């Protein structure tokens, strides 16, 4: 069965420091992979996605993620965190069995990011 694990429930970083959020997935084939961000009381916003090709993916707001098949990982990174990045971040995998739907997703339980001034 497909699953997504985000090992860190809560991370605190200082403003200006680098960030890496971890994501591991379990899936039989090459998955579709996504990172979303959710601010308090808001819906989810897509940061970036990986389907195929270059394993380093650039997203919005200065985020990037790297797909590593050997480690079944898709970690999210940002070189310098801003206070406005404080939010909850979700990694998700989509099943190609469903015709490549980008909305039929399995989500991790999220990592809450706090930013210290």
């Amino acid at each position, binding site marked *: 069965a497909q699953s997504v694990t985000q090992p860190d429930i809560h991370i605190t970083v200082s403003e200006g420091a680098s960030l890496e959020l971890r994501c591991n997935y379990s899936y039989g084939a090459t998955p579709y992979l996504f990172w979303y961000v959710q601010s308090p009381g808001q819906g989810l916003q897509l940061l970036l*996605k990986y389907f195929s090709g270059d394993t380093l993916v650039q997203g919005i707001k200065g985020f990037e993620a790297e797909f590593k098949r050997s480690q079944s990982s898709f970690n999210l990174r940002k070189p310098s965190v801003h206070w406005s990045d404080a939010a909850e971040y979700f990694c998700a995998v989509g099943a190609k069995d469903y015709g490549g*739907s980008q909305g039929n997703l399995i*989500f991790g339980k999220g990592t809450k990011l706090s930013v210290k001034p």
Partner: protein
Amino acid sequence: EAGVTQSPTHLIKTRGQQATLRCSPISGHTSVYWYQQALGLGLQFLLWYDEGEERNRGNFPPRFSGRQFPNYSSELNVNALELEDSALYLCATAWGRTEAFFGQGTRLTVV
């Protein structure tokens, strides 16, 4: 352009009642996805409607049901409400198999 609209924003129901949640898609979007975001359980896929048909269903009991209308809007119905149904219900819409955009959700509280 308007985004995905969900109504109501908040809903308070008594255990055993029925709740109806609504989702209006972005213009041109034909797929609607429903998710439950309960405390401690994360985001769980509920239902997927595309072109009026149910395409997939998550691991939820039959008292969770829905439908998609000819204008592609959608309703999620939850019958015989239980306390553990209290959650944020998110709707996402997409055009075909393209990127899905999420609404801001309906907060359902069952008392």
